[in-house]
Structures are given as C-alpha cells and as structure tokens.
C-alpha cells in the first residue's frame, strides 16, 4: 500500500470520526425536537435540515465555499478573524458533518418516535426535570436507534465526495480522503490502487450497515422465523 493510500485511509477515518462527533449531539437534539413537535415550524425546520440529502453535494459545497469566502457570512471580513478552513482537513469535516447530519437527524427521530411520551411524563412525575428525563428515559430507550444513527452518519461521512472536494480540495497527504483517492486513481489509471481502495470502502460499509441491521432488529424485538 502506498503512503498516499495509507494517508487517505487515516484521514478518512479522522474526518468521518470528527464529523460524527461534531454533528451527533445537535443532530439527536433536532431529531428529538422533530419527533415530539408536529407544528408547521418544526416541519419547515425538518425540511431545511433534510435538504443536504437531496441537493447535489457540489451545490452544498459551493454554498459553503461562498459562505467561507473572504466576503462571505463566515468569512474574515464579517467575522473579524479568519477561521481559515478552506482547503484544510477541517473543511472536509465541516462538509462531511453537514452532508451526514440529515441521515443522523432522521434516524434519531425514528428512534425517539419509538419512545412512549407517557414514559417521559411518568419520569417527570417522579421528580425529574425535562433535561433529566431526556437523559434518563428518552436517550436510554432510544439508544440502539441512536447508535445506528451515529454509524450511518459515520458511513455517510466516509463516502462524502462532492462537497468535500469543493471546500477542501483533493490534495494527496493533506485533504485527500478515500473517495478522492479513488477518483484520482481512476483518473490516472492506477487500477490496482483503485481496487484496494474500493475493497476497503466495501469492507467498512458492510460492517457498518450490518451492525445497524442487527441493532434495528434488537430495537424492534423482532425475531426471524426459525426454519
């Protein structure tokens, strides 16, 4: 395995890991909010939060690029300092977080939908505040679904390409992730390297999705018929 390949793998795991960590807490809070509130406001917010899932990733990347540009709303001119994200691995984290968030939010919402709100009321009658109730009853009861949400978010972040390449570029040893490395290998015809990278992606994806399948089964208490 070349140095480039190893660097791409390490970077991918780092970017996806950090992106999952960053987006997880806001995403499960939003998922909880969308699960418990069915007002027009919550629906509109839910739609906005889901948009990255249906937009072309390059569109999201371009919007981020404009936002982080010198005169953009997150640029040095407006903020008064330079957060200096563009073309760094941190930009890849930002792109991956945004692209993964809808999947995490939606999976978390489904997990919280399965928690009986009456059990939360019961917890409150026993003397626990809303926040304590969330931590003591809602989260533990939704834990399998929330773990599945984190795994799906992580895999989505691993596979992110379009938005990442727009804001972070595809610089070998610096911002090149698995997806970017496969693209480069294909572009220059390094078939062997492409296959290695694809096999790695397949293995990672298989383990992740298989884990969520098992978690989903346990969460619903479903047992397949024995033959």
């Amino acid at each position, binding site marked *: 395995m070349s140095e480039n390949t190893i660097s791409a793998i390490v970077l991918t795991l780092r970017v996806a890991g950090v992106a999952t960590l960053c987006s997880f807490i806001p995403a499960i809070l939003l998922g909880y909010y969308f699960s418990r509130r069915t007002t027009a406001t919550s629906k509109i917010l839910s739609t906005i939060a889901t948009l990255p899932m249906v937009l072309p990733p390059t569109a999201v990347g371009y919007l981020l690029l404009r936002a982080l540009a010198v005169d953009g709303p997150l640029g040095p001119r407006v903020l008064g300092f330079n957060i200096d994200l563009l073309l760094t691995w941190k930009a890849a984290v930002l792109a991956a977080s945004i692209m993964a968030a809808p999947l995490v939010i939606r999976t978390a919402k489904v997990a919280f939908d399965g928690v*009986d709100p*009456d*059990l939360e*009321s*019961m*917890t*409150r*009658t*026993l*003397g*626990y*505040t809303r926040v*304590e*109730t969330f931590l003591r*009853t809602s989260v*533990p*009861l939704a834990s399998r679904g929330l773990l599945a949400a984190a795994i799906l978010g992580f895999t989505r972040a691993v596979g992110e390409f379009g938005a990442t390449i727009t804001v972070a570029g595809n610089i070998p040893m610096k911002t090149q992730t698995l997806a970017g490395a496969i693209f480069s290998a294909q572009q220059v015809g390094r078939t062997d390297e492409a296959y290695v990278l694809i096999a790695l992606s397949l293995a990672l994806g298989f383990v992740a999705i298989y884990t969520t399948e098992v978690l989903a089964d346990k969460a619903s208490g479903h047992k397949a018929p024995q033959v």
Partner: protein
Amino acid sequence: MKLSTELQAQVSLTLDRFRLEVDVATHAHVTGVFGPSGCGKTTLLECIAGLRSSAAGRVVLGSEVWQDSADSVFTPTERRGIGYVPQAGLLFPHRTVKQNLEAGFRRARREGGDPAAIYRRVIELLELRDLLKRRPATLSGGERQRVALGRALCSAPRLMLLDEPLAALDQPLRRKILPFLRSVREQFAVPMLLVSHDPVEVQALCDDVFVLRDGKVVARGTPQDVLTDPSVFAMADEQGFENILAVTVLDRHPAGTTVALGSGATRLRFELTEPVGTIDDHCFVGIPARAILIAAEKPTGLSARNIFPATIESIQAISETSLIVKARFDDASAPLAIEVGHAAVDALALRAGLRVHLIVKATSCTLYDAAAA
C-alpha cells in the same frame, strides 16, 4: 375518613368533544372520579399532575399552590410530588423491578422522606420481593400494576393519582389486586384520587366520589349515594346496586364461609354459601340491594341465616317503582343500601330512625377474595 390536607382542583380546558370544567375540593382520604370512558377523567388527572400546561385554573394541595392561572403560578410536574399510577403501569422497560421502585428515591430524599424505609414496607405490603430482579417485560399484568403502585409509593408522594389502575386486568385479577389497594389505603395516609368506572372498586376504596360526564361534575357524594342513583349510574337500574363491604374471613367449612363484618365484640358473623377464602384474609363481600329483606320485628322460623338488627338512616325514591332504604348495622361502619318497593315502605311504616332487622340471603352474596380469583 378525612385527612387534614385538602385538594382543590378548579380546572378548565377545551378538549375535542367538550370542555372540561371541574371545580372540586376534597378532604377525603380516597376520592373517586367516576364516569364512562372519554368523560375527561384522565385529562383531569393530567391537569392536576401539571402535564397539561394549556389548562387554566387553580390547583392547590394543602398550603401549596401548584397552579393559579390568575397569578401565572405553574409548578412543573417534577416539583408537585405526585405518585402517578396509570392504567398501563408504564414501568421503565430498560430497568429491573428494583430499579423501577427506586426511580423516585431521589425525590423522596429531597422531600425529607426515608425512601429505604418506605421501600421495605412497600415490598412487604405488595409482595414484590420475588420480582425485584426481573424486567417489566417478564411480569404479568397484575405484577406490573403492583410494581407501578410500589414505584409511586416509594417516591414519597404528597398526592397519589390512580388512573384506572386495574382497568387493564381481567375481572378475576382485578379482585385479586383490590385487597392490595385496600392495604395501601390503610397503611399510607397519602391523599389519593382514584379514577374508576368499576362500582366495586369505588365502594371498596373511596370515601367521596364525584361523577364526571362530558367534562362536568354531575353528581357528588358517598359511593352509595352516587351508585344507587339511576340518573347517575345507569347500571343501578338494570342490575341493581351491589353493596360492597370489607370483611375478614373467620372460618371456612365445606358448606360455605363465615366472615366477620366489623371488628371486636360487636362484629357480625356473616354466613356465605361459597366455600372460598383463607382464614384471616381481608376481602370484600358483595350484597345486592335487591337481596336484602327488611323485617319490622325479629323474624323466626326462617331458613335465612344472616339476620341482623339495624337502624334505618334514610329513605329515598330512585324510580317510580322502587326506593333505596339506607340502614346501618349496629356496629358496621358503612350503611347498607336496600332496594324496596313503595308498598313495603307503607306496609312496614319505614322511616328514618326505625329499628328493623335485615335478612340477607347467603346464596345471593359474592365473596370478592384474592384466593377465589
């Protein structure tokens, strides 16, 4: 029985089909909320628990004002000191029975209570010792309700709200759990509000009952007053009223069971024809109002074995053909309702204060007993 703590609930809330508009105050140990399903009973409990923030009104327990919309006072649920026992138990599925029982310990301690002591009493009283390590999913319906009751008690509540705690159980099981509720009543001086549509439950547990229909209180009184009124309780007309009396099993023999009504020297020995029950068990006997005869003088040469002197307390017409006579045995605490025709009242010149003898046919009585279930 009266408690020093008064519960005042003045609540108004617009619901889908009607407006809940209730204004009640009670000192009773156990207050019943009686009514058909969908009359707003559960919503009323939720308002008192603080789970319906959109409800307007005033909720006061003793000296604590939990809600006063006029003053914008609203104590959140977690600070009201509620012990809630819902129909479905709502045990925490991810915790063991022991952990469920301990869920309210923190609140109990904060309130200056001794949860460990209550816990020991509760385990004893509700017979939970063998269940402690189990998960709610492995419990039977009756076990779940006992744990739910125990969990509420262990949180040292200032007010117990019981929302049809036995409704999810089948009839025999309900009669089996009823004595547990009765012991909770005897051993804990916590005011309780019990939602129910079961006349047996209401009589066995409540001192004061109000009847809710389409969100309004339509009647209020003792269980007997309320349940013998056909305009309040439709079943009073069809099946007749059934008196429910707390008794203790004295003896069980092949021909039947002897139970004691009341206690001490003045207790009455009551013969039942069903050989059921366990000696010293506390249970309930059901005596239909139509199965009691009134005699002006002590009758002799009758096959009936249950003949007791009593004093008439009141007479009230309930329909064109029948009246309810309320009479009290010499020692028994609760009066007995007897359904009679107008002719009987005239023939015997029945009136309040008159000494009579009541004749109860043993075969008409039912023993509601844990072991019989």
